[in-house]
């Protein structure tokens, strides 16, 4: 990680205006978005969008040609190119041919992508942004910090200062007044501009139409007043049919700004009359800039389904802490990381890809159905392939890859950690759990790991089923009591537990760092170990491990070309189940009974990212805890990441810590004395947080709470 990058993160997190505005916005956004989507089947809607857009992405060449033919038949001039330099030259040529002195622009990411303003200005043409936020940014000489709200990081005082300088008159900090000033200043620019430049939100091949979506009304003026209109359109904006605009117009305003529809939508098909009676000179530039290449990449073609709503930024726990500037490019957040890797170069995403904590929030709400975390992992993988792993990481994974050595070191750590032991916590953990413990204590390595305790557990002889237990590193070496609780519960349901000694790290840390070779070795070792015994289930009480076993081994091995392992990976995936889901099934089947009539008081539940968004198990743990006698009091943002993210909390403690603080705050707000969760990683993070915070809240894995409540 480059030093400047790290510093920019520090600056962003330390900027109270920015984090305050983004934080409040993201909290309000969630509520408003839900309201805007009332009565709409979002899953059906986004499936339609994904289907139409992926169809377009698969037929880009044909659609671009159809669009060009249809738009030209209406009298527009269409220019197609892959090269941003050619785009700029073309637009300059048009401007010079019309003797253009000044240009008004409505918001267009594509023009920013190629730094068009600077280029035209160098040629002596004045370029005025007219979107209020973009204009503010332009006056400040900054970059937008958010896709939809470019100036969200600025206060009205700062805006008033900028405007005062611009109009040479002291202007007060009153927002309606500031907006009036902008209206007046920009109105004059509109009326005298010789050329309007816009983007487009949709381009319809069938009719040669451009669709522009705005709230301020600037796009209407940009496309109406000047005699020349240039629209710069990234070819991912193409759709095949006119009726494809309906699902996009249904989702875009709702997702972007929680509106049912923006104030204005303009559908422009060919040149229209100008005020002096002649037809407007309409130029449409279809820009590729590696989009076709992206469409041909099996892992990244889905990125072309993006409708640029920005909602993935609004729900991202990282984005709301750092805003857009740390991304250093025009496109920001998770989607921006992906677009930067392609539109600029892979190498430019090296630092920013590390910002994603893989919580999956964005994937849940994306109206284009993009799997952003998956694409970011792919970027990591390609970076590692290209440049190799960072040395420190290489050393760590070298150890993780050697089970005997890895486990040996963890054992050694339990001894080394001892002097620092205080009430089950130590301040410094050796090995890859590093010593960055900002705002959170780390657990001691257990004196006796689960693998050593297991053989001493007495299991009933008359079990009718068998479950293979995959402990994962944290339960094995830090929280063996969780494993013991799990065995007790399984036994009570008539299930014998086996613990294959040869199991090792699930490979998630390696995979999430892009070290697929290591993850692949882990996958093969585990497949062998876990399929060796005849068993009905493979159960884990760690959602990250469960996801690895059930969803990732196959993918990791396939991307390494180890296709021969796929049948076994599938066999393992089919048997794998997370703890709460399995227990809920057993309770429903009458094989397990919880003690009745218990009044255990209030408890709040934290949804772990992988459990909620990949395994989709939100109800089983809640229902079980309720059945056990707890009153579940929901916390605010119960499904927001706790900031752990595996080794994320070690790599970026400056981001992990504030996320954790927020989580602790939300837990405390419920007043419940207990917080339950299904992930030992979250337990480690949140327990450690409360240990330093000194609040009296018990942090428990569901498995521990349920083990106490079984009817014998």
């Amino acid at each position, binding site marked *: 990680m480059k030093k400047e990058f790290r510093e920019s993160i520090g600056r962003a997190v330390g900027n109270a205006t920015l984090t305050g505005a983004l934080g409040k916005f993201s909290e309000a956004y969630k509520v408003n978005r839900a309201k805007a989507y009332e009565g709409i089947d979002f899953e059906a809607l986004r499936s339609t969008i994904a289907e139409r857009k992926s169809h377009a992405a698969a037929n880009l060449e044909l659609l671009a040609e159809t669009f060009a033919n249809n738009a030209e038949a209406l009298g527009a001039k269409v220019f197609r190119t892959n090269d941003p330099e050619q785009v700029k030259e073309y637009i300059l040529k048009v401007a010079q041919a019309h003797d253009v002195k000044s240009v008004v622009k409505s918001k267009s990411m594509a023009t920013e992508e190629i730094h068009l303003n600077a280029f035209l200005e160098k040629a002596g043409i004045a370029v005025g942004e007219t979107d209020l936020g973009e204009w503010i940014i332009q006056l400040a000489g900054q970059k937008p910090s958010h896709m939809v709200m470019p100036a969200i990081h600025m206060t009205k005082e700062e805006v008033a200062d900028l405007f005062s300088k611009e109009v040479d008159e002291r202007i007060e900090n009153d927002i309606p007044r500031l*907006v009036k000033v902008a209206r007046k200043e920009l109105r004059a620019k509109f009326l005298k501009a010789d050329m309007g430049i816009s983007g487009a939100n949709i381009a319809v091949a069938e009719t040669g139409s451009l669709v522009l979506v705005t709230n301020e009304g600037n796009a209407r003026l940009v496309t*109406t007043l000047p005699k020349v209109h240039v629209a710069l359109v990234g070819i991912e904006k193409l759709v095949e049919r006119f009726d494809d605009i*309906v699902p996009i117009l249904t989702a875009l305003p709702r997702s972007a700004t929680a509106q049912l529809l923006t104030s204005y939508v303009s559908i422009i098909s060919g040149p229209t009359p100008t005020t002096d009676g002649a037809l407007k000179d309409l130029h449409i530039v279809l820009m590729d800039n590696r989009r076709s290449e992206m469409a041909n990449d099996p892992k990244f073609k889905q990125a072309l389904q993006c409708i640029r709503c920005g909602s993935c930024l609004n729900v991202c726990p990282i984005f709301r802490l750092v805003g857009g500037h740390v991304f250093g490019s025009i496109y920001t957040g998770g989607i921006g990381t992906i677009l930067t890797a392609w539109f600029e170069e892979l190498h430019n995403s090296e630092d920013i890809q590390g910002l994603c904590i893989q919580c999956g929030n964005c994937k849940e709400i994306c109206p284009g159905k993009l799997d952003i975390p998956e694409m970011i992992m792919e970027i990591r993988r390609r970076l590692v392939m290209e440049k190799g792993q960072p040395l420190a990481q290489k050393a760590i994974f070298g150890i993780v890859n050697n089970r005997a050595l890895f486990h040996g070191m963890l054992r050694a750590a339990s001894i080394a950690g001892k002097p620092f032991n205080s009430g089950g916590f130590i301040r410094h953990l050796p090995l890859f759990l590093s010593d960055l413990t900002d705002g959170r204590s780390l657990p001691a390595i257990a004196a006796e790991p689960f693998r050593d305790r297991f053989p001493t557990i007495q299991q009933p002889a008359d079990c009718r089923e068998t479950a293979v237990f995959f402990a994962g590193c944290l339960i094995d070496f830090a929280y063996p009591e969780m494993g013991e609780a799990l065995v007790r519960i399984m036994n009570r349901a008539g299930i014998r537990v086996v613990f294959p000694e040869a199991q090792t790290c699930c490979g998630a840390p390696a995979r999430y760092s892009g070290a697929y070779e290591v993850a692949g070795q882990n996958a093969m070792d585990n497949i062998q170990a876990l399929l060796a015994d005849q068993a009905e289930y493979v159960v884990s009480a760690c959602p990250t491990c469960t996801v690895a076993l059930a969803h990732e081994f196959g993918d990791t091995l396939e991307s390494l070309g180890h296709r021969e392992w796929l049948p076994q990976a599938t066999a393992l995936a089919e048997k794998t189940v997370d703890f709460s889901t399995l227990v809920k099934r057993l309770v429903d089947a009458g094989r397990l009974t919880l003690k009745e009539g218990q009044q255990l008081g209030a408890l709040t539940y934290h949804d772990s990212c992988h459990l909620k968004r990949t395994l989709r198990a939100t109800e089983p743990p809640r229902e079980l805890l309720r059945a056990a006698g707890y009153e579940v009091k929901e916390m605010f943002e119960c499904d927001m990441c706790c900031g752990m993210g595996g080794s994320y909390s070690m790599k970026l403690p400056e981001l992990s810590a504030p996320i954790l603080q927020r989580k602790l705050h939300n837990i405390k707000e419920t007043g419940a004395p207990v917080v339950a969760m299904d992930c030992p990683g979250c337990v480690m993070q949140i327990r450690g947080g409360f240990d330093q915070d000194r609040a009296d809240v018990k942090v428990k894995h569901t498995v521990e709470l349920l083990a106490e409540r079984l009817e014998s």
Partner: protein
Amino acid sequence: MYEQFKARAEGVGAEVYRFKDREGALAFILPFLHEEGGAAPPHSCAVWAESPFLEGLDREPLREVAGIRFEVSREAAAAARVGITQAEWALADTGTLVQDQTAVEQRLASSLTDIHIALLPTGNIIPDKIALLSKIDPRASRYIAFITGPSRTADIERVLTIGVHGPERLVIVCVDDMGGPAR
């Protein structure tokens, strides 16, 4: 349908009125213009872009009452306090007006002025965008405008503020009987 449209349009800050016929609508519009047009120059006039509403109407008395201009130039529209156009369709589910604004006068009158009065045949309120698809044709209408409430921004401190580049007020005047066959 009208009720839903009215609720949704008002929800985004539009003002919605309904009248039985053109006479009723005029009895509302003229005093409105009189009041708004009485404001100090340069915003002392109104522009009224060609509308089916005006067909067969004697415009001379209108000119007297409020100093309306029916010739909509850039200058006239930029100086006008009020602009009047007629929308063809309205979408009940989002409170949206839809108008073919290929003629530049229609755009000038509805985007440069402070107040946009949009006339609308009440019978042309349809449920939603899907219902609209069969009624509009981008090949025939080169500039189709959807208008939902007044111009707005939240770009400064996320505070919703009305009237950035477009009109700060959208007044929708629904007329049940436009006289002659509804379009």
